[in-house]
């Protein structure tokens, strides 16, 4: 019996080791940015990113890729998130695999934080220069002070080549050309090594003789004053004076070498100009909205009035970066990320052209696995059960109108 027990124990141990070893070999790439775990209301009721374009899917090291588009700052911004008075247009990438060569909102370079206004729409552009080879998920992102990162859609971009080829040339205002990737590194190593050596020398001076036991015995027997000799004091004075004089000299020499230096630049940028959006001629009233949990579908009852001079049809509902398209009206030709695109996700009870002056009640259903995959269904657990999104209507000439909708949402569990 004991033999069997021993065998079972040893085999179990071998199995455990094999499982651990297998687990070590399973190392999938961690590439997400936590966008799915962000509360649904944060993605639905804060920043709405649209008309996004990634200029390239694949670039070589040193080449650039541009992400451009618009974002609408939702007028019904949730109370639990600080308003975007101090916001920073960021980019969601795993470390500096690209460098951010430029970022603009409304044509203004925004290297620092900006103040955004609720209800306004802004255009933006981010220029990235490829640095580290690999497949990278590149997200738009807006950081809001007191709100956290509000992440937008992400798309895979491949960088080819070798990082050793990456260069980042910069010309200073004093006319010096340098490579910011490597500039000043040898100077940093040199001075840190020099001072580390000085520190080690001071330590070595004291550690070369007996340290702990004899000295502790001497202190305990009242002979502490004998432990610091006049020679020790002279060496200490050399270190002290040498350190002060060396630093004074180096400060002066550095100022001579770099006569023009400026303080770090900081401060919030205000006065960012939003887009002048035309007043939509389509008026939408949300009569009610339900989210059917088993069907992963959101249904809205809308009363739509066309106040324009051309008939319109509903082509798209977009929320939390997920686009639900009505295939009879709109097909995506921008290469929008597949996982965020429900190409046939929008059904409308009556989507015949809505004539000028006509009012119609329609039922709109946005259904797709994205509700579940992107954890938007979790909005039923939010403390403020509301949804928001953008409706896009198209007239006969293909012109587009954007209408913001915002309403209470009732979950349906059966």
């Amino acid at each position: 019996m004991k033999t069997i027990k021993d065998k079972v124990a040893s085999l179990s141990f071998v199995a455990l080791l094999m499982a651990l070893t297998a687990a070590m070999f399973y190392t999938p790439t961690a590439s997400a940015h936590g966008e799915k775990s962000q509360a649904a209301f944060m993605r639905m009721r804060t920043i709405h990113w649209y008309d996004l374009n990634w200029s390239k899917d694949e670039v070589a090291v040193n080449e650039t890729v541009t992400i451009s588009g618009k974002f609408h700052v939702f007028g019904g911004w949730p109370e639990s998130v600080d308003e975007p008075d101090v916001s920073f247009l960021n980019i969601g990438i795993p470390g500096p695999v690209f460098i951010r060569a430029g970022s603009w909102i409304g044509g203004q370079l925004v290297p620092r934080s900006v103040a955004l206004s609720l209800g306004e729409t802004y255009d933006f552009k981010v220029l990235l220069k490829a640095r580290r080879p690999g497949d990278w998920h590149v997200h738009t992102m807006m950081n809001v002070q007191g709100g956290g990162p509000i992440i937008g859609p992400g798309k895979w971009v491949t960088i080819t080549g070798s990082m050793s080829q990456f260069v980042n040339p910069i010309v200073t205002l004093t006319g010096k050309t340098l490579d910011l990737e490597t500039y000043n590194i040898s100077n940093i190593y040199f001075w840190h090594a020099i001072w580390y050596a000085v520190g080690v020398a001071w330590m070595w001076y004291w550690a070369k003789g007996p340290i702990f036991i004899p000295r502790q015995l001497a202190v305990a027997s009242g002979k502490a004053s004998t432990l610091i000799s006049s020679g020790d004091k002279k060496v200490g004075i050399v270190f002290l004076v040498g350190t002060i004089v060396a630093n004074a000299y180096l400060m002066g020499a550095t100022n001579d070498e770099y006569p023009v230096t400026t303080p770090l630049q900081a401060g919030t940028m205000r006065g960012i100009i939003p887009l002048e959006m035309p007043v939509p001629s389509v008026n939408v009233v949300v009569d009610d909205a339900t989210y059917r949990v088993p069907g992963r579908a959101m249904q809205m009852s809308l009363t739509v009035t066309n106040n324009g001079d051309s008939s319109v049809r509903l082509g798209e509902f977009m929320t939390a970066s997920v686009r639900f398209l009505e295939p009879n009206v709109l097909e995506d030709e921008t290469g929008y990320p597949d996982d965020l695109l429900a190409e046939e996700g929008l059904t409308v009870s009556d989507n015949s052209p809505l004539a000028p002056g006509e009012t119609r009640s329609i039922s709109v259903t946005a259904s797709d696995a994205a509700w579940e995959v992107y954890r938007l269904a979790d909005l039923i657990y939010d403390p403020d059960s509301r949804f928001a999104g953008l409706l896009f209507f198209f007239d006969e000439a293909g012109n587009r109108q954007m209408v913001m909708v915002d309403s209470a949402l009732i979950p349906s569990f059966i």
Partner: protein
Amino acid sequence: MSASQSAVRSRAEAVAVSRTFDWMILFVLFTAVLGGYHIHFMLTGGDWDFWSDWKDRRLWVTVVPIVAITFPAAVQACLWWRYRLPIGATLCILALLLGEWINRYMNFWGWTYFPINICFPSQLIPSAIILDVVLMLSGSMTLTAVAGGLGWGLIFYPSNWPVIAPLHQPVEYNGMMFTLADLSGYHYVRTGTPEYIRMVEKGTLRTFGKDVAPVSAFFSGFVSVIIYFLWHFFGKWFSGTGFIADDAS
């Protein structure tokens, strides 16, 4: 060998054991300080020490010496009062910088590919030498706190200037002026570190025009004096030997 017999049989053997003990304790002390001080400094100095675009004339100069003088003061208290060894501050800073450099090279560069010129640690060794030598020459905690603590704060900026000055050269980039350090911070994307959390050049030291670094350094030195006292007492308290009374006897 009975319990009452000595473990060594000659003076030479006793010296050898004593030296072995020295190196063992020194190694343990160095690594323990490295771990504890490094965590303390990352939590309190944090981004000011991590990034070149946080190393400004006001807050970096003020904050880093104040939060860094803690462990040196405490370790000095132990090594000086028990062993008359004036190496407490230098030992702490050498340990801290070794840990910092391992972190910056292995993690910041090796793992996430930030160039070293944006994520190098602050230089603190000249400050530590001043603190240790003042303690050795004066033998006084009060004088070390006042003169050493002030010197600790005052020399911090000059000792870092040869390394950070090149990064404070101005650049015109897309119609705006940056320093090279600002531009590094903008170029090398930190997804989790939005620009607005960067606490630099904030405050009301406007009266001094462009010469705010010396004022910040003086202020840092003054506060370092107070922090030195506090942590010196912590060190004395922790390194004391206490015995539990045996009621039976």
